[in-house]
């Protein structure tokens, strides 16, 4: 790890489901467990509600990584929608790789309401992995003209 990546604090957007993984985060909080503060959690009713647009928007808006989290396979509150999230995760990863976003920046984590400790330790692990990858620095719409992206190039 270089000096630059050591001091880098990644911004991670985490999508949790209302019934399991958000409760796991809640449990980690009420049990006063310590974990990295880099993840901003957004609660959805179900991981199956996760529109891939949310993930692309997060990366385009400056997130360094995205966490998708839901109930364990077989435990979904809506019977099978977490499998839908699983399939979308696999396909998103392929597309993001082609767009130059390292597969390590997208993580899928199953966590039951009782797994606060696992949730906390997995997040800390993920933050370290993203820290090693370094910042993503996707160009923001307003800065496109002045950043190198729009500088003139010669043949």
């Amino acid at each position, binding site marked *: 790890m270089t000096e630059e990546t050591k001091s880098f604090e990644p911004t991670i957007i985490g999508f949790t489901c209302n019934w399991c993984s958000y409760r796991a985060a809640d449990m980690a909080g009420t049990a006063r467990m310590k974990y990295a503060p880099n993840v901003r959690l957004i609660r959805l009713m179900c991981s199956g509600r996760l529109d891939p647009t949310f993930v692309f928007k997060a990366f385009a808006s400056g997130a360094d990584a995205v966490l998708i989290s839901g109930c364990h396979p077989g435990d979904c509150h809506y019977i099978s929608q977490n499998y839908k999230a699983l399939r979308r995760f696999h396909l998103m990863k392929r*597309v993001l790789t082609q*767009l130059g976003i390292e597969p390590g920046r997208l993580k899928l984590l199953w966590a039951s309401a009782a797994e606060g400790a696992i949730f906390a330790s997995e997040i800390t692990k993920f933050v370290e992995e993203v820290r090693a990858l370094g910042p993503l620095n996707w160009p923001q719409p307003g800065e496109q003209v002045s950043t190198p992206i729009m500088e003139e190039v010669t*043949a």
Partner: protein
Amino acid sequence: MSKPKFAMYWAASCGGCEIAVLNIHEKILDVDANFDVVFWPVAMDAKYKDVEAMEDGSILLTLFNGGIRNDENEHIAHLLRKKSKILVAFGSCACEGCIPGLANFSPVKEIFDTAFSTISTDNPDNIRPQTHYAMPEGEITIPTLYPVLRTLDQVVDVDYYMPGCPPESHQIAAVIDLVIQVLQGKAELPPKGATIGAGNSTVCDECKRKRNEKTIKAFGRIQLIHADPELCLLEQGIPCNGPATRSGCDARCPSAGAQCIGCYGPAEGVVDYGARLIAAFASVIDSDKPEEIDRILDGLVDPAGQFYRFNLAGSLLKAAKPAWKSNGG
């Protein structure tokens, strides 16, 4: 009374949009009867300086096709914006990047290498184009390529969008009819920012093929599948982009036995075209096991190309990382 002025321009595009305009057949006479065509490089001789000399806002209608790939494209986009009352992003390139926008997957250096140094190019001295070159007669210049292609509305303010690669001729004719009616005071223009000359639904909505519940065990390329002529193509494992694509073409490709490739761009309300297709395709895969899901997805040979064939420059991420990181060729 002098006729209102009309202009059409091509930036980074193939010229298919101009052909589509001429394909409206005798309706083109209505254009001539109602408009004074002042600038249309493919159809008539006019110089940039003639446009520069025009009064601001003096062109009533400009159809701008093509993306913004170099500084000449950008200059003309700004110029025509200033001179036009109504600027229409005409065709997929201007609206969302289209095929030229696929170059946003690659850094400029790779684009130049492919164009000038691959085996199919006879260029033994590896000569590359220079933007400035001193000749005995004086210095000559050619436009400078930008690292990525941008859509028209990423560069200037756009009044209306007309999607399609190219827009269907009957849709162009309908739009021209509308503008003429507006001129005669018989109709009103749609609100600014509207998509014109297209439907508000999806290609699937217009498609006549039979649909059942979709469960896909394998994806395959269309040339390798003996497709049922009546049944939904996606149900047969052929990656058809109909679920996310805007209607307006009368589902031409699926009616002819080919899958929709998405040239009419994102349907109403779709923020990111590719993300919508990822949601749609992943939802109908019939497996809950990670290994099997991966095996089924292997059937989609080039997912990013499949989902962003027309839409990369206009998508949320706009370009692949190697392209926007490149800063020299």
